[in-house]
């Protein structure tokens, strides 16, 4: 059984800048972490691997060359191999273009039974890419998965939805995206760390993946960021300073009463 996991490097803080001209994120390269939900995805894959004898796990990341580090970390956590999708032609890819590139990378990984992704990345926050990959691979894709039971030829998933949970059974191959209820994130092991040093990560650019550079990057992205701006926030604010007396709170109470809030 072959499991693929996507790992994305994301900024470790909120302090990310956007290029006001192109609307593309400026990634400083410093202070990056693996997207937390991808670590849940990876942990789940390793868990399945540890419970059976026939499981192989490949981690795939798309990003700058430095994203190789994320793949090494994935191997240290227990993945068997890493594939890096990297090249200037990918810059500015929206979710559609990213989905296409990742789908092509999965094909490079060989026959795949199960793809596990984090439900969304903490930077873009769209949660769209994973299911788009499912579409390009022409396999079923499911989302918001909070538990997953692997059977011989299928997987039974529990999805967290608005008013409860849905149980769905899907035969392999299938892609699922998971939320953080699925497990407690695992840690790299010493054995894994040593292995990460020796296992080479394969890297592909667009031509290496057999896709035209017009299908990825800004060229392959239907959406365009046309403007970035600071939000205009304004209400007619009544501002009081706390001065140790009851006065401001009393005025607040009168205000709330006048607005029929209490």
């Amino acid at each position, binding site marked *: 059984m072959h499991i693929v996991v996507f790992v994305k490097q994301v900024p470790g803080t909120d302090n990310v800048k956007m290029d006001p001209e192109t609307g593309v994120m400026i990634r400083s390269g410093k202070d990056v972490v693996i997207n937390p939900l991808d670590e849940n995805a990876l942990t789940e894959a390793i868990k399945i691997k540890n419970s059976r004898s026939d499981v192989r796990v490949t981690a795939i990341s798309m990003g700058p060359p430095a994203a190789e580090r994320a793949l090494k970390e994935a191997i240290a956590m227990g993945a068997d191999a890493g594939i890096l999708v990297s090249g200037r032609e990918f810059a500015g890819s*929206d979710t*559609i273009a990213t989905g296409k590139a990742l789908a092509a990378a999965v094909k490079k990984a060989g026959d795949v039974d199960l793809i596990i992704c984090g439900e969304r990345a903490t930077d873009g926050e769209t949660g769209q890419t994973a*299911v788009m990959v499912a579409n390009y691979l022409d396999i079923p894709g499911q989302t918001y998965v909070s538990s997953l039971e692997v059977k011989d030829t299928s997987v039974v998933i529990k999805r967290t939805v*608005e008013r409860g949970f849905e149980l769905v059974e899907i035969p392999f191959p299938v892609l699922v995206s998971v939320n953080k209820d699925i497990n407690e994130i695992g840690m790299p092991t010493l054995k894994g760390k040593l292995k990460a040093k020796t296992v080479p990560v394969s890297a592909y650019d667009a031509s290496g993946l057999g896709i035209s550079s017009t299908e990825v990057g800004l060229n392959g992205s239907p959406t365009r960021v046309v403007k970035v701006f600071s939000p205009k926030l304004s209400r007619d604010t009544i501002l009081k300073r706390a001065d140790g007396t009851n006065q401001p709170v009393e005025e*607040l109470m009168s205000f709330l009463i006048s607005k029929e809030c209490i």
Partner: protein
Amino acid sequence: MSTYVNASVQKEHDLSQYKGVCVLGEQKDGQLLPVTFELIARGRSLANDLGCQLSCILLGDEIQEIEQVFHRGADRILFIKSPALQNFLPRSYQNAIVKLIQEEKPEIIIAAATTTGRTVMPLVAAKLNAGLTADCTSLTIDPDTKLLLQTRPAIGGNIMATIKTPQHRPQMATVRPRSSKPLPLDCSRTGELVVKDYEPATFLTPERFLEFIKDTTQTVSIEDAEIIVSGGKGMKNAEGFKMVEQLAELLGAGVGATRDAVEFGWTTYPHQIGLSGKTVAPKLYIALGLSGKIAHLAGMQTSEVIIAVNKDPEAQIFKVADFAIVGDVFEVVPMMIEAIKQHKANAKPELCALSS
């Protein structure tokens, strides 16, 4: 960007065939969900600006009181009807919606950022090679180009990004539930009901729906609360955060929190309000010791009345507050709790006076 050579991109002259605005309504067990009416309100204003029709796409088997969709502002219902669509299965829904889009060629489709919308819309977008923008807070029509301007908070920081889809159709976006209000009911409004009776093969999928399990553990639903008291990192620790809960209890309010407060474990994720949490629009929102980063504001700024207490006079939360107190929460909130207790106590003697 006029040099598109992607084979799967629709040719430019094709774009003019796409007309009309669609929203993707939702049902559960044959009952229309409220988010359907919120989407219709959004869609209505876009359709008015474009001078075109507004259709509501529905998938399911039997849908009760379907004409409510007209009463709330839609011109047409495009109802894809099949027992196979009773429960949500991504592929069945994807195939059905893609077929409908190929027939109807809408210019714009808006869906809700629910677990359903967020799952099926990317599938549809990928199949059609169309753009999709998630979690928009504002959707307007550009008066010059007539393109859909899709605005969403970006990177959780302090910026908004406006996105458009110039060369691909339909233009697609999701919006958070509760981020707009339904139009008033107009029972005299009617429209055209189109039932799409597609071949069962359309809905074929290897997925098998087994069961729906209702969640009975979540008692506080902040989405439905009239009043929300919300706390952030300024509450310092779990002990401090209890003050938020105490004030909420006193007011019969729901408890909200910022992502930081949730990550510190002072409360649980269902209480998180904002971009990656819930969107709420209560009558009264009380923000305590939270800065009002845009990722948080995205989930609460449409609240009717906003009160904020923060010791930093420059805190962004004050820009959306109607009444703000610059001060230490540990000084101000206990006073608030006292004042509300008194207010309640004072309300009672009046009743007593009446009865005595």
